[in-house]
């Protein structure tokens, strides 16, 4: 286990244990009323109301961020895309960087990102709110693998995947984007912009992020087909 996570788990353990004891104590003295912790903003003399007196549970357990998952599809439909990203250390001959945290996010087949709708930050159903966003930690080969769908596109941008690489301690090492190859036999051509088509599409040479990438260093290798699904391979080197 990585040292920081290990220390963290100790901290969580230390927090949880006394509370578990407290919970056990409560369940064995069910006749006492009002032992429940006062909630934040709960009852006060100004507004007297009955505090909850139910069996506690299920007991909260520490869970990682919901981003930590390999399959980020969340029910979004589209052509399957397996993204294999290798993180190298540019301060070490680009050799694989293990234990790096890699966040990726991209838009759905219609070109929309998961986010609170509109500018008003309205309520959202918690079941599927962070679609097409994920986080993995690199293995000893520097590799992370995500299962997703081939991204759609939106006005002004070529097809792309956002990537944020952190070291094991969570310090940002690189914010970048992955571009897709173009041309007659490319995946971008095969997907053909899903239902939008390619009218008005911004190609890499006109894209305000990728247009200065004359050597194609930001362009991934993408193989496969719409029926078999696509596989994206990308090496990203970061200073670690």
């Amino acid at each position, binding site marked *: 286990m990585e040292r920081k996570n290990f220390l963290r788990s100790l901290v*969580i353990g230390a*927090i*949880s244990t006394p*509370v578990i004891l407290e919970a056990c104590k409560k369940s064995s003295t069910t006749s006492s*009323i009002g032992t429940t*912790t006062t*909630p*934040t*903003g*709960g*009852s*006060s003399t*100004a*507004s*007297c*109301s*009955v*505090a*909850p*007196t*139910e069996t506690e549970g*299920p*007991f*909260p*357990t*520490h*869970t*990682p*961020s*919901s*981003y930590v998952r390999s399959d980020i599809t969340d029910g979004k439909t589209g052509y399957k895309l397996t993204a294999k990203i290798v993180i190298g250390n540019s301060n070490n001959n680009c050799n694989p960087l293990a234990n790096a*945290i890699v*966040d990726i996010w991209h838009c759905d087949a219609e070109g929309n990102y998961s*986010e*609170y709708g509109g500018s008003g*930050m*309205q*309520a*959202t*159903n*918690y*079941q599927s*709110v*962070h679609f097409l*966003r994920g986080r993995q930690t690199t293995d000893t080969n520097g590799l992370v693998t995500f299962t997703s769908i081939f991204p759609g596109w939106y006005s002004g941008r070529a097809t792309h995947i956002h990537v*944020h690489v*952190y070291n094991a301690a*969570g*310090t*940002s090492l690189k*914010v970048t984007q992955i571009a897709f190859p173009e041309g007659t036999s490319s995946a971008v051509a095969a997907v053909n912009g899903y239902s939008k088509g390619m009218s008005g599409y911004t190609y890499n040479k006109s894209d305000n992020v990728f247009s200065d990438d004359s050597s194609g260093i930001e362009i991934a290798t993408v193989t496969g087909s719409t029926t078999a699904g696509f596989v994206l391979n990308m090496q990203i080197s970061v200073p670690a």
Partner: protein
Amino acid sequence: MEKRIITLCYRKIIDINCTKAWDKLVFEDSYQEFKLQAQFYNQDKKYNTFSELIYNVKGSEKLHFLVSGAIIDYLRQLNDVIPEIANNIGKPFLTFKQFKFEIINSDLRNIDKHVIAINFYSEPLIWHDTIASYLLTSPLTATEGDMLTDMFAIQPFLTIHSIK
């Protein structure tokens, strides 16, 4: 009175002083996620606080949404039940599917400054009547006839969110 359909909102504030296990987990994990996600909007490391980011960096309001990813699985652990709000016999009775997570304050240098809110929006209720200071309600899914009801008082941080 005429029956009306309402939803309630419970705004739960969580800060460094919270002592319940669930609150502490949500507090700590949302802070860690804030420290990760804030770096995207702070690539020159110019800012330390959430409010500095909000006032100076375009798009940083997405941090509310982005940080909420850290607490979704804690919401799942609630099994759709809004915590802490009880009816007048002391039982939790409000269910939810909708929520809104807010960062109220935070500071990359100091977890003590981290304050968040989770707004829980209840599933619809039928508001039958008001007896003294208590609302008499049933879940919208309750069948006609001998309807089971809940009585509860509107208390601080609990409000009627919508009505029809």
